[in-house]
């Protein structure tokens, strides 16, 4: 069972290669096999989740074997409290995106190949503990997304795909420079070894080159992915033009890679710099929350609105991370999982609405609750999760983050930032309710009379997501028990 992580990561990749070379597969076979693979990955990750030892704070299910000894880069995988929920989330969203893609007709084989490659690269990022391995998985993800958006997307898909790739590559180029400098300064690429706690001599101590520029190189790379405010201009275009299946993985899993990277590399490897520059990042986080909320209010295209709302919610994650408190960090990880589920459900329902009425603009919709009651209910439930209504995971996450960052002792100015972030909570209520009113309530428009409601399969996975959202909302200890101990490890270097 020691190699379960490698199996989880490479199963989709192997399946993708197999799909590529098997001649003349019927469409149905491709769809079923891809879904079976995604299901297997989900089963294995749930198995991991079950026997994860909640009391330990270090890495579990570790695999280390030498890969390039010259560069001290070895094939090192491991999962801890922060990355495990994200692995399960990715596996779940992967399965849901496979199910959604059963409706794809053009070039089915390529679509599922790219989707499997994308899923395995994201899983790879969450499990790898070596900087080089982390970077390789981080970069692999760009190509499938480029192909998925530019072939199966909608609207100006070509240049939003190109915009996404160039933004991500620019971010990862900076990250590569950071990795190179880290290797140059410490001579090792092992994340786990580099952490100050393990006596390898934290990066900050080595006088050869101050660790602040390296910290900011990494941070820039992750900020593009998150997206933090000034670097976010790719997000609305990409989210509104990508096909739904990719949208879910993009907003659900890829945005979390940025946040996970910040926790795993920026905070753990550079505790002093993250403490010194926390106020700047908190300002960016709060700007992200308010700015995302305001712009979401102004959008007329349904998917762009959800994109901006996702940016606003990721602002909460950043707030939780850089408050550097034990509770706020747990809240941030909880928010990552809950935001992944809620935004995925929002995108699915928005996709169903747009697909059935083929009108993405909100102005042209109205009174759909009468024709599409199931989709309307799922959208309303997701919306309530998004605005952080109690009993949904949105509230559990947002409340823990706000509580943690308000009472964090490490960053003393965190209180004022949290106070302003409360406005973000209000803004999210405004634009969610405004959308529900414009799209679903109000008099039924005659144009949509022959619109069909969500099919059986769509109701299945929407229901699945709703159940999970409410289970986490009602009893968040399922996740917090996993997350908390590994967060204590990281926060302890901060004196948090």
């Amino acid at each position, binding site marked *: 069972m020691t190699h379960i992580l490698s199996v989880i990561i490479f199963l989709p990749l192997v399946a993708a290669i197999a799909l590529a070379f098997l001649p003349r597969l019927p469409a149905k076979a491709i769809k079923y096999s891809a879904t079976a693979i995604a299901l297997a990955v989900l089963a294995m990750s749930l198995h991991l989740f079950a026997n994860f030892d909640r009391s330990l704070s270090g890495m579990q299910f570790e695999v280390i074997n030498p890969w390039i000894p010259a560069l001290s880069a070895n094939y090192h995988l491991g999962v801890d409290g922060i990355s495990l929920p994200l692995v399960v989330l990715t596996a779940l969203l992967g399965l849901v995106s496979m199910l959604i893609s059963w409706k794809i007709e053009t070039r089915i084989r390529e679509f599922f190949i790219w989707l499997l490659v994308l899923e395995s690269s994201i899983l790879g990022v969450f499990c790898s503990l070596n900087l080089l391995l982390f970077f390789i998985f981080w970069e692999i993800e760009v190509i499938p997304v480029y192909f998925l958006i530019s072939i199966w997307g909608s609207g100006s898909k070509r240049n939003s795909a190109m915009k996404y790739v160039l933004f991500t590559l620019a971010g990862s180029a900076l990250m590569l420079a950071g990795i190179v400098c880290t290797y140059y300064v410490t001579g090792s690429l092992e994340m786990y070894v580099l952490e100050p706690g393990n006596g390898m001599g934290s990066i900050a101590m080595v006088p050869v080159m101050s660790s602040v520029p390296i910290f900011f190189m990494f941070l820039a790379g992750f900020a593009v992915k998150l997206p933090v405010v000034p670097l976010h201009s790719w997000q609305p275009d990409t989210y509104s033009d990508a096909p739904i299946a990719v949208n879910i993985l993009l907003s659900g899993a890829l945005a979390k890679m940025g946040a996970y990277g910040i926790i795993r590399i920026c905070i753990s490897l550079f505790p002093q710099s993250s403490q010194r520059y926390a106020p700047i990042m908190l300002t960016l986080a709060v700007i992200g929350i308010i700015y995302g909320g305001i712009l979401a209010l102004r959008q007329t295209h349904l998917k762009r609105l959800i994109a901006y709302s996702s940016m606003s919610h990721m602002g909460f994650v950043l707030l939780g991370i850089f408050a550097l408190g034990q509770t706020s960090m747990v809240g941030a990880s909880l928010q990552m999982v809950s935001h992944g589920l809620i935004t995925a459900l929002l995108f699915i329902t928005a996709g169903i609405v747009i697909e059935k009425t083929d009108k993405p603009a909100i102005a042209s919709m109205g009174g759909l609750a009468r024709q599409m009651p199931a989709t309307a209910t799922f959208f309303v439930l997701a919306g309530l999760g998004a605005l952080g209504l*109690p009993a949904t995971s949105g509230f559990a996450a947002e409340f823990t983050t706000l509580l943690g960052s308000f*009472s964090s002792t490490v960053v003393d100015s965190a209180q004022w930032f949290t106070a302003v972030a409360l406005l973000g909570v209000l803004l999210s209520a405004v634009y969610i309710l405004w959308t529900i009113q414009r799209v679903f*309530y109000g008099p039924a428009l005659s144009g949509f009379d022959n619109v069909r409601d969500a099919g059986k399969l769509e109701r299945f996975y929407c229901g699945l997501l709703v159940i999970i959202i409410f289970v986490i909302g009602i009893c968040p200890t399922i996740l917090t028990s996993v997350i908390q101990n590994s967060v204590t490890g990281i926060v302890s270097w901060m004196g948090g």
Partner: protein
Amino acid sequence: MHISSITPEFIWAILWLPLAAFAVIAPLIRPFPGKAEPASFISIAAVGVSFVLSCWLLISVWNADGHQILVNGLNWLSITNGPVFNFGLLLDPLSAIMLVVVTSVSLMVQIYSRAYMHSDASYRRYFAFISLFTASMLGLIMSANLLSTFIFWELVGLSSYLLIGFWFHRPSAVAAAKKAFLITRIGDIGFLAALLLLYSRTNTLDILTLNSSAVTAVLSGSVLTLAALGLFLGAVGKSGQFPLHIWLPDAMEGPTPVSALIHAATMVAAGVFLVGRMYPLFEAAPHALTVVGIIGAFTAVFAGTMGLVMKDIKRVLAYSTISQLGLMFLGLSVGGVWVGIFYLFNHAFFKALLFLGAGSINHATGTFDMREMGGLRKKLPWTCACFTLAALSLAGIWPLAGFFSKEGVLAAVWDKQPVLFAFAIVTTFLTAFYIFRVVFMVFAGKYRGEQHLHESSKSMLLPMLILAVPALASGWLNANGGFEGLFEGHATHGFLEGIVGLLAHPLAWISLATAGLGILLAYVMYIKVWIKPDRLKGGLHPVYAILTRKYWMDDLYENLIARSLLYRGAFQIAQWFDHVVIDGATNGVAAITKAAAKHTSRTQNGALQLYALVAVMGALIIALVVILV
């Protein structure tokens, strides 16, 4: 007779029963288009049992030691060296009484709704949301942890949103629902801020510990005041007090039983309950109570004036609720918890009765506009009797419940804040005038509409009659000082002496006189028509205009702040900034690289001599650099 004290399982049952009813009805919403009856039976049964249990609970709390039962509950969230929240139940006189009020009014309203909503298509969805509301309201009352209060607080807000926007095909209802949710949400943000502040200082959100820490001055000074004001902001949002009151009149878009249950008796009272529950905090905070009093008094008069000119029965009753809530907050701030809660206790019954009466009038005349009614006492005798009885009680006429609770507030205000006493008296006059304006316009004179009038069915009248009893008699509970004793715990005096003795007090006569004056003025204007209302309207035209436009508060909020200042102002600038600056910057970078590419590629013009020249110049430059540097 000694009844054994209630066991924790039954206390939990009070909360779980309506929740279970919601869980059972919710999935039924679509599959069986056929018979819709079972939904109402399940919901009514659940609330009925809860009502019986809460009566039993009230008795057990009465004879429990220290009048308090604490039930420790399940752990919601615990983080290593971080917060630990476990949600228990705290039952003391305050919550026991509120339980009885909520369950009884909810039971009556649900029985009434069976007939009222009979013809509605989504009958099941209505009962599902009503049980959800009742469950979350009970949860709010019983919770021992401020965080679980906040959770149920927001669930109550959600169910009010769902019920106001019940007929979602009507755009005005949906807009009203959204408005209600957002305005209460602003209040909730205040509540949340207070939670964060309290937690950051005391590392706990347990109500008892917070109250005791306020008393032992662990919490004190500006932090405590800020927290108290945050809680009060939440209460203002939920109870529709002055700055955040604009959603309550619009909430009348929902079905009338909903207005009766939520926007008259229970939800709006949550604000008063919260202040009552965290009273030690408010007492310890230096200025918090005065702020509560001032806002309460001002809202009472402010809403009362607007109630004078409304043409729609439900709008009048809505403004009257806001005004009465103002009085409750005033009573709380001066008289202590029992004054406010006693007022709330009585008000819940007769206001619910007024709304149910308005519902049965609507069933008969098909409208709420008073100008198309008149002379209904002949056709709707029972409704007229109940409505008038409740109106008398609201106005505060002697033997009825309203008089006693109003008396309590006036007495307390008289000796603590004489300035605010004037506000209270003016409110009493206004209340008496506008409620009897409604009574005379609806029941007196001849019928102005052309509907075929008929008395409501028995299943609508029965709950009204049952509610009429407490509307009449609930005041007598405190006749022997029993109600007050439950809270302050000092001795009770004789029963009759309480009822009659009160008359000896000069204050009683002042309030009776003002109420009588109000009724007389209404009588003169609408029955005898000595002063024609429309001539008065002409004379005091500017005043009339202000009142009908609701002091332009709605326009201020919606058009000025929301639309022009924010939506078209600040947010438009943000969108322009995002579009021009951020997107512009990224496209700019791309354009620069393209331009650079264009310029450098112009050098490749294929001329051999240029190539050779560049090569030789390059060599020379390298040589020079190497030698000179």
